[in-house]
C-alpha cells in the first residue's frame, strides 16, 4: 500500500510533533484563511515558515517537492485557465487565445495560496498521529448535542483501518476476473456490475462479522475518553501564529 502510506504520519520529536492537536487544528484554519488575504511578500514569508517547519519535522526538500507531483498538474491547469481567461493588457496572442498580464498575476496568486494551504495540511498530517486526530475530532464535537462524537470517531478509525483491506480485495477481485477474460467483454455496464456486486457483497459480509466481533468486545458508545494535553509551548505557538496572521491581514 505504498500509495496510501506516502503522506502519513511520520514519527519524530520536532516542535510540531510535540504540539497539541487542537492547537494545530486552529493553526491549520488560521493560516489557510489568512493566505486568502495574502500577496507576494506575505506569501513568501508563509512559504518560508512552512517549508522550514516541514524540514524541521524531518521532511527533505526533495520529498516536499515530490509531494507536489500530482498537485502540480491541477495547479498548472488553474494557472493556465486564469492566464487565458482574465481580461487585461495582452502579453502574447495566438489566434483567438490571448494571455494577459493580469491573468498571469492572478493565476500565480491563486496557485501560490493553494500551495500554502497544501503545505499547512501536509505539516499537520505528517506530525500528527491518526489517533490524535480522532481524539481531536471527538473533543471538538463532544460539546454539541445531537452529534454522536464517539460514534463518528469510531467510524473514522474503522474506515481508515479497512481502506487498505478493501483496496486489496478489489484488486484481487479485478485480477481474478481478468484471469477469466473479462477484458473481452466490452460492455462497461456489465463490467461495473461484475466488479461492484462481489465487492459490495463481501464488504457487507465483512461488516456483519465485524459488528458481531465488536459486540463480543462489549462495544458501546459510552467509552473511555481520549487524552489530550496542552502545554506552555502550545500557547507560545498560538501567540506566534495569531500575530503572524494579524500582520498579514492588516498589511
Amino acid at each position, binding site marked *: 500500500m505504498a500509495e496510501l502510506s506516502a503522506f502519513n504520519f511520520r514519527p519524530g520529536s520536532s516542535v510540531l510533533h510535540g504540539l497539541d492537536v487542537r492547537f494545530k487544528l486552529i493553526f491549520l484554519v488560521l493560516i489557510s484563511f489568512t493566505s486568502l488575504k495574502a500577496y507576494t511578500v506575505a506569501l513568501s514569508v508563509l512559504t518560508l515558515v512552512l517549508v522550514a517547519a516541514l524540514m524541521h519535522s524531518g521532511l527533505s526538500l526533495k520529498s516536499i517537492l515530490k509531494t507536489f507531483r500530482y498537485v502540480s498538474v491541477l495547479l498548472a491547469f488553474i494557472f493556465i485557465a486564469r492566464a487565458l481567461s482574465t481580461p487585461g493588457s495582452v502579453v502574447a496572442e495566438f489566434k483567438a487565445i490571448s494571455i494577459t498580464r493580469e491573468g498571469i498575476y492572478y493565476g500565480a496568486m491563486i496557485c501560490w495560496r493553494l500551495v500554502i494551504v497544501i503545505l499547512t495540511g501536509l505539516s499537520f498530517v505528517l506530525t500528527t498521529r491518526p489517533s490524535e486526530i480522532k481524539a481531536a475530532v471527538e473533543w471538538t464535537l463532544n460539546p454539541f448535542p445531537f452529534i454522536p462524537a464517539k460514534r463518528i470517531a469510531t467510524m473514522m478509525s474503522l474506515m481508515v483501518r479497512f481502506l487498505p483491506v478493501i483496496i486489496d480485495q478489489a484488486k484481487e477481485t479485478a485480477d481474478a476476473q481478468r484471469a477469466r477474460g473479462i477484458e473481452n467483454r466490452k460492455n462497461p455496464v456489465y463490467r461495473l456490475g461484475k466488479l461492484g456486486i462481489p465487492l459490495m457483497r463481501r464488504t457487507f459480509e465483512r461488516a456483519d462479522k465485524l459488528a458481531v466481533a465488536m459486540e463480543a468486545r462489549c462495544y458501546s458508545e459510552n467509552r*473511555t475518553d481520549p487524552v489530550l494535553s496542552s502545554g506552555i509551548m502550545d500557547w507560545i505557538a498560538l501567540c506566534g501564529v495569531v500575530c503572524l496572521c494579524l500582520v498579514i491581514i492588516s498589511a
Partner: protein
Amino acid sequence: MNIIEIENLSHYFADGTCGLENINLTIEEGTFVVIAGQNGSGKTTLLKHLNGLLLPTTGTVRLAGVPVSENLVKARQMVGMVFQDPDSQIVGETVCDDVAFGPENLCLDRSEVKRRVYRTLKVVGLLDFEDQKPHLLSGGEKRRLAIAGILAMEPKVLVFDEPFSSLDYPGVKQVLKQIISLHRSGHTILAAAHDLEKVIAHADRLVIMKDGKVVKDETPSQLLGELEAFGIREPCASRLGMEVQSWLN
C-alpha cells in the same frame, strides 16, 4: 467449580432452521475443551451462546452460576471470543489502538487501558509491533493480535473458533503456543475445530457435535478411534497406532 453450565439448550434461527438441539454441557474451570464436528454441525452457534451473541430459544447458559442473559456485558467480558477470520475482527488502525478497543468499551481509566495494552502485547509477543498497521501483519501475528484484543478485557474463558484456519506451519505453532500458555496460566479454553491434528494432544476433553447435537463427550484418547464416523479425520499418528504428539515438538 463449573464455570460454564449449559442446560437443555436449543436454538432455532429466525428462518426456522434448527441450530442447536437440547445441549447439556458443563465445563470445569481450567479445562481445555476441543469441540469438533463437520461443517455446519453447530460449533460456532454453540460458542456464540457463551457470551450472549446468540440467546437460547429454550434452555439456559450459566457462567459461574449466573445466566448469560442477565448481564450481557459481564458475560462478554468473562468469555473472550476469537473469531474465525481475524481480518474482520481487528478494529483499530494500529496494533495498540486495537488492543485498547475492548478496555475503552468498558470505560476503564486511560492509565488502566494503557497498562492492559502493554501487558497483553507482551503476553502475545507483539510489543515491537505497537505502531504497526494490522493490515501489514502476517497471518499468525494477526491471530495473536485478535487474541490480545480479547485478553485485554481479562476474560476467564477463552473461546477460539477455528484458531488455525488459513495459517501456515509457523503460524500454527505461534498460535498453538499462545493457547497452551494461556491454558497454563489458568484460563479455561474452548476451541472449535474440524481438524484435530493440531490441538488434540493438549486437550483435556473432546466434545463431538453433529447436526446441532452433542454426540460424544469424553477424553480425547477414548474417542480417537471413533472419529471418522462423525466426519472428522483421525490424526495420523493415532491411525498408525501411535500416541498423538504435540505439534510443537
